């Protein structure tokens, strides 16, 4: 029965531990699933939002550019508003110098009026003899040299409207040119610095991480919101992702890219490293993970608390069962089986053979108490004996009830007292006798309750509880003979008497 109780106890404790572990695991698992789903949902929502925003931004940039270029073309078209302007040819030999100067002054004034608020680098009509009328910058003069007319003429690539856009002339990507044929001997040139496109490609705040680039069909960057990119080949990481498309929005772990082609084989490319553009997403992920972790930890702590609350009564029952299995139900000290087991275990572990003592007690006149005062009183006496033993002996000592009114103490003797252990044993026995005397003398004059005590010493008198018990019992017998209420320490002569008897 006791063995069964011990095994149940262990099992219940194991179950308790497993229950807690399972519970915490379930909470963490559940939290992980919730956070994964939340992150996934947020991730998708944010990605969709960012893609839509970037796509709209690209669309807007492309419209801005178209509108800007259209405005330039309209200004160019206005040159044709006056016949004198578009019909004049500076290479016509029939022109007199005076008329030429007058007409060119008129053309210059006209052009001046058209571009007065524009930040053009060049705005002029260039004739086939390289003579410009209007504004041609020193930079342009230097760059084109004697090929001013022919190289500008070569930039016309739209036959229908006899005009064209161009950049990268002699690897100079700082200027963009618009050229339109005015007549057989003349072309109009409008040029401006690419940084004028800053206004065109200015995008709203909050999406600073997006780089806006205007790219030629050959992959050369005409304009970039990031400085120093003009004239360079578009980053291969980006160009690989948009290869073969004219309009696309793509996103992977590295980049978010949108592409939209506009006229003249130019494309607006908006790009951003996914890490940066989805920073908000990463922040949300970190937030969700932290919140989930905190929640999981709190939930686990709460759960452990609740479980321990719920389990406390069970623990009590288990402890009680355990006590019942090991202790004497009446006195609360060890029962015979447990006492014997513990003493034997202690002896086995006592490899140094330190002195120990088995003190055996038998109540004097207990039968008379039972007969006269009843069993209930007798039980009270036994409980009292248990109390005395607990009071007199240290917790290191084992105290047990071997049955009826027979009690036993397994006395540990400290290292200090090993040298004169007999004295120590005697002191303890005297203390015990005195405790009996104090407890039961005067309380009930009818019966003075005392104990006869026999003591055996390990290893002098035996190497097991059984051997020691036998010797202690002989000594107890001797105490009874001496008139009770005394103690006797076993000696070899007692064994001889037994054998003699």
């Amino acid at each position, binding site marked *: 029965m006791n063995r069964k109780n011990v095994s149940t106890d262990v099992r219940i404790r194991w179950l308790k531990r497993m229950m807690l572990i399972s519970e915490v695991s379930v909470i963490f698992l559940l939290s992980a699933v919730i956070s994964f789903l939340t992150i996934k949902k947020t991730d998708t929502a944010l990605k969709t939002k960012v893609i839509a925003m970037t796509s709209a931004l690209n669309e807007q940039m492309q419209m801005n550019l178209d509108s800007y270029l259209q405005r330039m073309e309209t200004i160019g078209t206005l040159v044709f508003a006056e016949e004198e302007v578009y019909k004049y040819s500076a290479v016509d030999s029939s022109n*007199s*110098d005076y008329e030429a100067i007058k007409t060119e002054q008129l053309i210059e004034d006209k052009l*001046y009026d058209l571009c*007065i*608020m524009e*930040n053009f680098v060049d705005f002029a009509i260039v004739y086939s003899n390289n003579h410009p009328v209007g504004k041609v910058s020193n930079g342009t003069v230097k760059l084109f040299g004697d090929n001013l007319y022919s190289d500008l003429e070569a930039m016309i690539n739209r036959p229908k409207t006899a005009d064209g856009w161009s950049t990268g002339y002699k690897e100079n990507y700082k200027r963009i040119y618009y050229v339109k044929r005015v007549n057989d001997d003349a072309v109009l040139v409008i040029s401006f610095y690419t940084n004028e496109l800053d206004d065109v490609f200015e995008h709203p705040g909050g999406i600073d991480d997006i780089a806006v680039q205007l790219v030629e069909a050959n992959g050369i960057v005409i304009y970039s919101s990031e400085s120093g990119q003009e004239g360079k080949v578009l980053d291969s990481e980006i160009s690989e992702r948009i290869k073969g498309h004219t309009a696309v929005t793509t996103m992977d772990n590295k980049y978010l890219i949108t592409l939209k082609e506009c006229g003249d084989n130019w494309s607006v490319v908006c790009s951003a490293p996914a890490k940066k553009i989805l920073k908000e997403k990463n922040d949300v992920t970190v937030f969700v993970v932290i919140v989930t972790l905190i929640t999981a930890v709190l939930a686990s702590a709460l759960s452990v608390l609740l479980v321990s609350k719920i389990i406390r009564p069970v623990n009590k029952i288990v402890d009680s069962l355990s006590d019942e299995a090991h202790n004497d139900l009446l006195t609360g000290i060890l029962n015979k089986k447990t006492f014997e087991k513990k003493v034997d275990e202690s002896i086995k572990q006592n490899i140094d053979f330190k002195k120990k003592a088995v003190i055996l007690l038998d109540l004097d006149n207990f039968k008379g108490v039972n007969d006269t005062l009843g069993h209930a009183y007798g039980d009270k006496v036994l409980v009292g004996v248990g109390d005395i033993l607990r009071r007199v002996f240290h917790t290191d000592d084992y105290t047990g009830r071997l049955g009826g009114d027979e009690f036993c103490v397994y006395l540990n003797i400290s290292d200090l007292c090993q040298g004169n252990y007999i004295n120590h044993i005697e002191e303890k026995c005297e203390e015990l006798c005195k405790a009996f005397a104090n407890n039961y003398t005067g309380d009930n004059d009818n019966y003075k309750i005392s104990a006869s005590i026999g003591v055996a010493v390990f290893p002098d008198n035996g190497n097991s509880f059984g051997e020691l018990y036998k010797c202690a019992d002989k000594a107890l017998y001797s105490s009874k003979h001496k008139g009770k209420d005394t103690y006797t320490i076993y000696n070899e002569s007692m064994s001889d008497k037994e054998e003699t008897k």
Partner: protein
Amino acid sequence: MFESLHPDIKVKCHYSEWSGYQTRNDVRMVSHTESDVMQINYAWLKQYSDDGEGYYDINQLSEYVDLSDFTEEDLAYGMQNGKLNAIPIALNTMTVYINKTIYDQYGLDVPKTWDDFFHAAEVMNGEHYPISMSKKSAWFFLVSYVGQMTGKNLMDDEGNITFGEKEVTMMIETYCELINKKVMPQVEYFDKLKIVDGSYAGVLAWLSDAENYCGETIENGYEMTIADYTTVNGELNSWYAKPATMYAIRKDVENPREAALLLDYLLNSHEMAGFQKLEKGVPLSASARNYLEENDMLNGIQYDAFIKMQESKDKLEIISPYFENDTMIDAFIDSCNEVLYGKSDETEQGKILLRNLTAIPE
């Protein structure tokens, strides 16, 4: 660069070609769309801020703009009615750049007088023009000539024309003579490339344009030198100087501190000095000038032109703010052309020109 030094300030730049800049500036000033910090011409101070209220009083921002880098005299150029409306970047004057290599080929000395130019034209015999210039330079050149010849000024401080019919007629006559005797090409045909290739043996241009006009010519192996300011008889007068472009702040600027920090950066910072070098002339800011000196950047044709100006500083007259009116200059060249092409004579055109000049509003 400025933005990296002041990350909290964002600057939006507007490129603007100088030709037509005044008209654009006019439109912006009248329509209240001018920039917070702007480059202005000395002439516009009177036009837009006669009472000192047209631009911000930079004295109020001396906490951010280090005015101690400028002398009182320099700052006086930007004072209007007791308010510091603008700060000059550098001083500027019309400068005579001579291709000494060409002149040497003809055994000619560097010209000092108008007669020297006429003489050079005779010697060069149409193979080279001894001098060349744009429309505006021609205006200055002729005003100086007539001023020296007559002792009169073109206009008074208020912009009223003080030249009479005789003086403007002399301007037209002299211009036509310069053209007819091949001293210089017609301003309409002035071509910068012909300075570079040596076809023009000289050019009259702003000091601040020295590198622009002479840099490449020097690269082509020609020796360019700074001639004395041209005089009739060696006596220098009627030659004008002015502050090169100035910086001003919009009168009702929303962020005066930020505008002032940018202004200080443009005028005084080492970064800007190193970046701009002598492009706008030798800076008046002591801080910028010291930086250029310490880094051996005060050299070249632009610096030579600056030294020439410094040598004659006391004799140069400060230009009237009304002097550079494009309409006046156009009217002058129109009259010259009428005479040059035999459509009219000097006397008639003198009357017409005077009428046109006096009719032009300030």
